[in-house]
């Protein structure tokens, strides 16, 4: 099933009732690589979280193919993410006391018994693909920033998602590591026809995207 992103008349408000994000219309075909950029506080991450189903909009629709996630209950949205979305964060968000494989295959701990093996195999393959095969058994607290972010990417890929959503994936990395991360994300998305939406200030990342959306004052300039 094709998971094209469609956003219509989306409004996200703060608890105090302030409009944080307003999106009249946004269409992203499945398999696209989209960059989102803009000044700090403009609403880039809010847009990412909204299309990830991590927050409930005040109004409007967010749909991935036939999945209208804006109408889903929290448990249904969690299930949608579990099955279709891989998330990468700026500061990795790993369990430092676990190994790289333990982190990459974390979904196996709450997945159905029938899918656990495939998740672990996929995580192992992801680590190998990202050059971390030899570090599989080591705790990630001894890893460099670049290695940690690659573990986070392997974790995002472990459930073989159709969508990768990345929030500032290169912001905590040095230039060399950031360049490698950009390569990895772009090639991983292209190779498997995944949709990649990446929030970033990094021009190098945006150069590898199919197109870039600027967000200003809570409004994407599409």
């Amino acid at each position: 099933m094709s998971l094209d992103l469609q956003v219509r008349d989306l409004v996200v408000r703060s608890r105090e009732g302030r409009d944080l994000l307003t999106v009249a219309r946004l269409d992203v075909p499945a398999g696209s690589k989209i960059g989102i950029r803009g000044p700090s506080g403009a609403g880039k991450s809010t847009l990412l979280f909204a299309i990830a189903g991590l927050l409930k909009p005040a109004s409007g629709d967010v749909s991935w193919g036939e999945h209208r996630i804006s109408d889903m209950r929290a448990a249904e949205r969690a299930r949608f993410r579990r099955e279709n979305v891989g998330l990468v964060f700026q500061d990795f968000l790993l369990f430092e006391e676990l190994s790289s494989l333990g982190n990459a295959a974390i979904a196996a701990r709450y997945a159905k018994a029938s899918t656990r093996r495939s998740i672990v195999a996929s995580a192992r393959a992801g680590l190998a693909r990202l050059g971390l095969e030899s570090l599989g058994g080591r705790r990630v607290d001894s890893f460099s920033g670049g290695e940690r972010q690659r573990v986070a990417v392997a974790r995002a890929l472990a459930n073989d998602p159709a969508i990768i959503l990345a929030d500032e994936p290169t912001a905590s990395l040095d230039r060399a590591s950031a360049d490698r991360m950009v390569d990895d994300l772009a090639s991983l998305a292209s190779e498997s026809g995944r949709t990649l939406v990446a929030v970033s200030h990094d021009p190098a990342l945006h150069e590898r995207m199919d197109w870039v959306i600027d967000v200003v004052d809570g409004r994407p300039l599409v």
Partner: protein
Amino acid sequence: MVPEFWPEFWYGLPVFVQDAAWFVLLLLPALVTGLVVVWSFRPFSLVWAMIWRYRWTNALFVLLIAISVGLGVGLIAQERGIRQGTARAAEKFDLVVTAPGSEVQMMLATVYLQPVDVPLLDGKTYDAIASNENVALAAPIAYGDSFHESSVIGTTAAFVTHLSGDLAEGRMFAAVDEAVVGARVPLDIGATFTPAHGVGDAAEEGAHEGALLRVVGRMAPTGSPWDRAILVPVESVWKVHGLPLGHGPEREGQIGPPFDPDYFPGTPAILVRADQLWANYALRSEFTTDRTMAFFPGAVLSQLHGLLGDVRQVMSVMAVVTQVLVTLGVLAGLAVLIRLYARRLALLRALGAPDRFVFAVVWTYAATLIFTGAILGIVVGMAAVGIISKIVTARTDILVEATLAWPEFHLVAGFVSLTVLMALTPAFMALSRDVITDLRS
């Protein structure tokens, strides 16, 4: 509805099985909750990672629980140990006859060697008791003197044998200047000493100057204050006080019964042992008169224990309440501690982990701390009981051998079940947090 066969079936079971069944029953809520919460998930390595990340904070929580549990179980075990120890110390004292007064005071003086000034029983009374056809043993117990920390008790050789069986060392006293010491008296065989008049701070050291007694034997341990006592022929006590020696001129130099009532100076107490159980009751009745009081130390002790039993129940309830309060405090702390893990839990929820899994992680984390604390608490309790038993034994000479038993394990099982159920609260609280806020924190 309870089936008709239930009471018969239950009471037909061995006590061990009943206790074990209660233990399982009390632990069952915790086990069932754990099974239901964790079913189909694998939260354990994440829980371990959470515990390890803030290991010192978590260790402090576990320690708090352990101390709370340890104090609770230790308190109950110690109380039982003291009760058993005092009962064991009194079991050789079937029936005691003294002058009328307080049974408790007389029991403390005679059985636990806490002497008091009491009127003496005369020779006629002793003779009436000793010559009763049902009496197997009638031993005067003449207290009031001491040597350092040890009471010097005048009695008979038969009483020494009744109290401790065969001597551990040496031989029985056979002369008025000989003594047999208790197992813990720091006097060697052959040592000599002069008793003081009175005991403790009131003892008059020079009152019996010139009286020199020699140790000729040592009793086997009895686990009672008598282990610290020095036993001498009752004639010896009379002699150092300048009294007749209990025998007429024709039996001058005799040690032990029979005593001549006309030459019997008196004794504060007489231990009586009948050859039949029923005879003890008959003797008690016979010697409960205007001039004498007969009582069973075991019965007096039982009344005291009954009185203390109410205190024990209050203490048990207090122990449970204290533990629950400590655990409530710990759970409140856990709720705060969960905030340290808020970002990781938010990550799990962002990745799409079911709420039930996040719930399982938080609950398993809390339950692990509680279980670990409870198990460590049993160890703490055992250590505390061992140390306190030694101290109590050293201070009272009553052998207290307190060990943990089923009641303590029942208490711990109930405590664990209650608290892991309470641990559901921080797990629910973790789910009510805002994912985005925690991810950005």
